């Protein structure tokens, strides 16, 4: 018992430490797609957003360009190219229970063309769109997995 008790304490401490550390990371789902009125249909990868997209936008076609799952660690920026010459940078700045605060920067040639801070929660999608792409517009959808 004298030997096992310190081991038990060590493992318990380790597990509690891991628990606390696990709070400082969030998995973010990033999807970049083109919305246009050329053609009809929605990519299978966007089907879960189908109802949302139809209720908000009036485009007839949604085509996925890029999809990535990013693990964000506290105050560690993660940059992903989303379009030629453009990239999106995500930084987790805080997490309270199941809400993650993320700074989103869209950069063009190292210049911030958008700087915002959003709060991601389970089931919520934050979509950033507008810039022209081909015959439509580009939309970046962000959601978090806890």
């Amino acid at each position, binding site marked *: *018992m004298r030997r*096992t008790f310190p*081991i*038990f304490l060590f*493992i*318990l401490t*380790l*597990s509690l430490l*891991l*628990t606390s550390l*696990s*709070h400082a990371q969030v998995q973010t789902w990033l999807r970049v797609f083109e919305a246009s009125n050329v053609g009809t249909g929605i990519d299978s990868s966007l089907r879960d957003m189908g*109802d*949302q997209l139809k*209720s*908000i936008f009036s485009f007839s076609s949604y085509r996925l360009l890029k999809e990535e799952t990013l693990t964000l660690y506290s105050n560690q920026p993660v940059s992903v190219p989303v379009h030629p010459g453009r990239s999106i940078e995500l930084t987790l700045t805080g997490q*309270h*229970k*199941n*809400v993650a*605060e993320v700074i989103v920067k869209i950069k063009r040639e190292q210049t*911030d*063309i*958008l*700087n*915002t*801070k*959003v*709060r991601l*929660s*389970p*089931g*919520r*999608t*934050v*979509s*950033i*769109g*507008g*810039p*022209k792409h081909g015959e439509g517009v580009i939309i970046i959808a962000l959601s978090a997995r*806890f």
Partner: protein
Amino acid sequence: MKDACSAVSKLLEKYFDQEVTKEERSFVEAHLLDCSACRDALRFMEELRTLIKVPVEEAVQKEDFPWVWQKIERGIRLEERPTFWETLQSWLQISSIFQRKVWIPFVATIAVLLFVTTQFIIKKTPSYSEPYVVEYIESETYNIMIFESEKAKTTVIWLFEVPEQKSSTS
């Protein structure tokens, strides 16, 4: 002689109880050979002892003092009560599964279960109300519109290009 009797009388009880030294014993026995009074005193002691001893021994033989044994047994049990760790250890040693070799995996499993359970409980914690989704927003090259749909749980940030002049909205 009186002095000797006085000295012997002080030693007589010790002599009777066989608690005297070798020299004292020799002195008392030498005196008893010549002194009838001291011999009588010694005999009286023997008779008195016999008078007391016999009825006490008879009473002891008849009485088994059960309450004394009960008290002693209770005392033994109290003294032998194991500590918490000893109880736990003995409980864990009941099963052959809990051998010392499997202690570490056992404890590790408990820790993992604790970790997973903690995660599950934390995940189940209801979210607090979200007063806003967009905390701040700024752009030097776009006009911005924010649309929030609570029903669809969607927030849309729409960027409108302004090619001729720079604008800033927040």
